């Protein structure tokens, strides 16, 4: 083993387990965030002023403020209700566990970003298609399932892919704010600890960055495959591009 590669491989080994924590935070918050986003997107487009106002406000507040501060605020807020709610209900060990609370706050955040993406796509569904579906006598749910949703998800998928990569990057902030339990440490914790031991910033931070890059690429790959399936019947469908702009 040569002198250049050995420390890099050593760091890669040390950071494999911490990387799982980042991955866990992302994976645990993607499904619920996706589901809630559909409701918030439909809510924002709702003709009911109260519902649309609420969804609009929620999306604006979470997209307009830093995730870092959302983490701080929701942790101390959850703490404030511990003695009055969580403890009497016997769920305090669950609610205040960083492995639960982290994904919960992440879900609140990604719901807003994803809902905005879905809302944007929803606005482009051709009116004619919906009218045609209505003319066939489809119910609201049927219209959504067979006309609106397929159109929406195909259009939103590239932007949603970017959002998932951003969400994965946002997991790096969780342990800057939530308490660290035992050896449940993520990539940023380990990179910082290793740096404080030998001051080799370039080595440790680069390897951590390598993990983030590799997993980001894997996300693009997997989501790209899904996109090709979504658009396989469409002529000249384009591929998901490495575009990375959080919408």
């Amino acid at each position: 083993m040569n002198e250049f590669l050995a420390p890099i491989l050593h760091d890669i080994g040390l950071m494999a387990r911490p990387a799982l924590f980042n991955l866990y935070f992302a994976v645990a918050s993607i499904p619920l965030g996706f589901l809630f986003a559909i409701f918030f997107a439909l809510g924002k487009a709702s003709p009911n002023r109260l519902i649309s106002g609420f969804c609009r406000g929620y999306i604006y507040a979470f997209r307009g403020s830093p995730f870092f501060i959302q983490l701080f605020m929701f942790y101390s807020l959850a703490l404030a209700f511990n003695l009055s709610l969580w403890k009497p209900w016997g769920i305090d060990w669950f609610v205040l566990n960083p492995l639960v609370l982290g994904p919960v706050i992440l879900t609140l955040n990604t719901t807003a970003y994803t809902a905005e993406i879905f809302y944007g796509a929803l606005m482009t569904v051709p009116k004619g298609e919906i009218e045609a579906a209505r003319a066939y006598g489809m119910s609201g749910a049927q219209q959504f399932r067979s006309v609106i949703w397929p159109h929406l998800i195909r259009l939103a998928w590239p932007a949603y892919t970017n959002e998932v990569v951003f969400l994965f990057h946002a997991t790096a902030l969780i342990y800057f704010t939530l308490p660290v339990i035992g050896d449940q440490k993520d990539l940023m914790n380990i990179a910082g600890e290793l740096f404080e031991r030998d001051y080799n910033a370039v080595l440790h931070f680069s390897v951590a960055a390598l993990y983030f890059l590799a997993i980001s690429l894997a996300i693009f790959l997997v989501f790209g495959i899904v996109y090709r399936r979504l658009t396989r019947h469409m002529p000249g469908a384009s591929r998901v591009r490495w575009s990375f702009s959080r919408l």
Partner: protein
Amino acid sequence: MNKLILAAAAAALAMLASGANAQAVRIATEGAYAPWNFLDEAGKPAGLDVDVGTEACKRAALDCTFQVNAWDSIIPNLVAGNYDVIIAGMSVTDERKASIDFTDEYFPPDPARYMVRAGTVLDFDNLSGKNIGVQGGTIHAAYATEHFGASNTVKSFDNADQALADLNAGNVDVILADGNYITEVVAGSGGALEKVGPELVIGGGVAMGLRKADDELEGKLNAALAEMKKDGTLDALIIKWFPDKVGPIYAGG
């Protein structure tokens, strides 16, 4: 920003000018560990650490300024040269001695204690299934992980105030920390918190930390501390911030 640059330039000039007669020394403290060190109502660092540092600097004819640095990076940033001295209620340990030097102590070794919400009963001989709160990177964190880590959950927080908030909110069952700190917090909690359990002797005395190469500065500060111990100034400062302490501690010795 312009003002900021001007202020920085002015500060630099002032430092150059004062450098002629007094050595400029930058001191880091944490500012979240009352009454050792905290940010007072005026927003300035205060507490025993700040008083001891200010008095020692005066006697050693040093031009000292205090700055705040997070606990978890306070030693690395000293070693990296972002300030010259740490005065932050830091206990002398062999592990820390491996990377930095310490002056003579300005606070004697003192047992660590446990703190719980009033009414909590714990069996300290067989502690299990409990949430133990500590400040990360302290001797207490190391002790708790080693002795209770196997059968309890050790939660480390960035600073003592955050651990206290979690204890108060019932998210940790017990905090292990410096005994004098706990005495002060319990006294101010209006009966909400209690000091309980055995006394644990886990650290050395409390001292100022310096870079290993700064022997000259270390000598000056040690001389000042010796003087303060002898004439009772240090005892008075300790009792000012920790009224439960009974003198003489260092005076006359």
